[in-house]
């Protein structure tokens, strides 16, 4: 059941991502997805496996639910963050804060449905963890745009 909830939530995030206006090219978004995933997976693993602040229930259904949340939902939310910071809207910096709150809500939904068990965890730690994801995504966006801007190889071009 938890797995179904996680998949459904992730699919809603994917639908919103598909519908939103994009400011990045396909390869840039794929690269950001990879980079954000690596960062998020490393943080989740450190918090859960090494520090044991958060425990994933020892159950296949809940484990897969957590995996979908960590490996698909969170990185897509971060690619959405990367797109919104490139909008030419004066309110563009409010949108990453909104996505930070969505990440927050997603984590607490996982806690609520029993996927994550908080052992030595509190709201402040969630805020720092999710805030670090958003800050990392914003920095990664500008690095990727800088890399794109340096493309001088005439043989290869990005679709």
């Amino acid at each position, binding site marked *: 059941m938890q797995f179904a909830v996680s998949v459904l939530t992730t699919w809603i995030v994917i639908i919103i991502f598909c519908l939103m206006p994009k400011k990045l090219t396909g390869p840039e978004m*794929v690269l950001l997805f990879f980079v954000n995933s690596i960062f998020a*997976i490393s943080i989740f693993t450190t918090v859960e496996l090494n520090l044991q602040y958060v425990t994933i229930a*020892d159950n296949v259904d809940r484990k897969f639910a957590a995996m979908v949340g960590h490996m698909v939902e969170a990185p897509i939310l971060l690619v959405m963050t990367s797109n919104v910071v490139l909008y030419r809207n004066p309110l563009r910096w409010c949108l990453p804060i909104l996505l930070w709150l969505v990440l927050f809500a997603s984590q607490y939904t996982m806690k609520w449905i029993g996927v994550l068990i908080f052992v030595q965890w509190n709201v402040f730690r969630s805020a720092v963890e999710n805030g670090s994801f958003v800050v990392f995504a914003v920095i990664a966006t500008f690095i990727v745009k800088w890399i*794109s801007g340096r493309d001088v190889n005439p043989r*290869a071009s*990005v*679709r």
Partner: protein
Amino acid sequence: MQVYDNAFNANEWFVLCAVTIGLLVVILLPKRFSLIQTVLFFMCGVYSGFFFDHTLSVIPVSFYDVNDVSKYQVMDFLSYWTYGPMSYLFFYIADVLRLRLSQMPVLMLVWALIGCGLETFAVHIGVYHYQHGYKIYYSLAIYLLVNCAWTALYFGVRRPEPRSI
């Protein structure tokens, strides 16, 4: 927590040498891709390593541990970067040989077999520690699956060939 060894020995040296040699190969090879494509093709290997290792080697069923202890360490993080040159070279060879989609399965198989060979060596020197009956054959299937995803990415981002008149 399971501890396999505490010393800085063969597995750490293997990871450091593999990352260094791999990065040198990527840097020194003549450029065939734009910078964003180069970084993308490199990072997709790193991502594949992270994705499958954090899927297969975590609870409730941890099929293998990486490096000295079952916890996540800096050397584990570095060991995933050894997959980067592997993916870059996969795309590089496909581009050098101008392989068509119909010819890609041959490269995918060759690359999966090379991956299995390197993984067997890595198991031998203690980078991977298989558990719960995990065997190298399962990795072969995973490598083939990963190579399929890489092929899809390659044909998705590659510049379309100019049509001959």
